[in-house]
């Protein structure tokens, strides 16, 4: 019952994203909630020896039947790719994850 309600909420209010569970695996289109994590203590971008590093994070709440793996999975929302920094399954109903913007691809 709970799972059905959660899916209905996702389908109605969630953002359309693509989830790639792991390297070399196919992208799965689904609906999930993505929200920026508010952090007043640091900047969104900080200079580093290797270039500007994005420090902002996104909170992901998605369906329970699409697992995410920290350090392997990737989420695409709009034109932006995000790496999964940490991921946990909460009960049977949904996946909670913390995303960080993926670095620019090498030329």
């Amino acid at each position, binding site marked *: 019952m709970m799972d059905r309600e959660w899916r209905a909420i996702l389908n109605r209010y969630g953002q359309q994203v693509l989830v790639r569970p792991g390297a070399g695996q196919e992208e799965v289109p689904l609906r999930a909630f993505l929200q920026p994590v508010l952090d007043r203590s640091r900047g969104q971008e900080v200079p580093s*020896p*290797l*270039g*500007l590093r994005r420090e902002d994070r996104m909170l992901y709440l998605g369906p329970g039947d699409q697992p995410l793996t920290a350090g392997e999975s990737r989420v695409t929302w709009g034109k932006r790719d995000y790496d999964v920094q940490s991921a946990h399954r909460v009960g049977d109903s949904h996946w909670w994850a913390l995303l960080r913007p993926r670095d*620019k691809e090498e030329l």
Partner: protein
Amino acid sequence: MSTGLENIRERMAGYLTERGVRAVTAWPQGQRQVLEAPVAVVSLRACEAGPAGFQNYLGERYNETTGLWEELYGRKVRLTFGLDLYAPARGDGAELQAAFDTLAAALAGDGPRGLEVLEFSCGETEHDSQARLLKRTVQAVCQAWLYSTPQSGGLFLDFELRGGWKT
């Protein structure tokens, strides 16, 4: 006027790249790129320039172009380069070790043109949690001579960087 030290990091990075070490200069302006292989990040950690010889007089040199002997004046410079190695945070650190071996071999030779490698040291591999990468601190101390010949009227304009001095 040239101080002889312009683009010194780029010269070191270019030297390492020619010898098989992937190297970039530190603190680029653009957004950080995905790191798929180890890279040496070249920075200038310290620069000490001091007097060389009496009143910075280094001696004389025959100029084949002008057919004249000319006096050389200059300073001795000690440059400490940061050559920190970064690698993706995966595996057992073997990639980083292999990159360090290549870097050490590159610096065991003559060194970049105009620079003499005096010292070379490294730390142990650690995980840089902010960068989310494996990191090994590496640095090389180089010695060079900045020298110039006086123009007419005793004016010094451009300095050159040289690693050794022969009498």
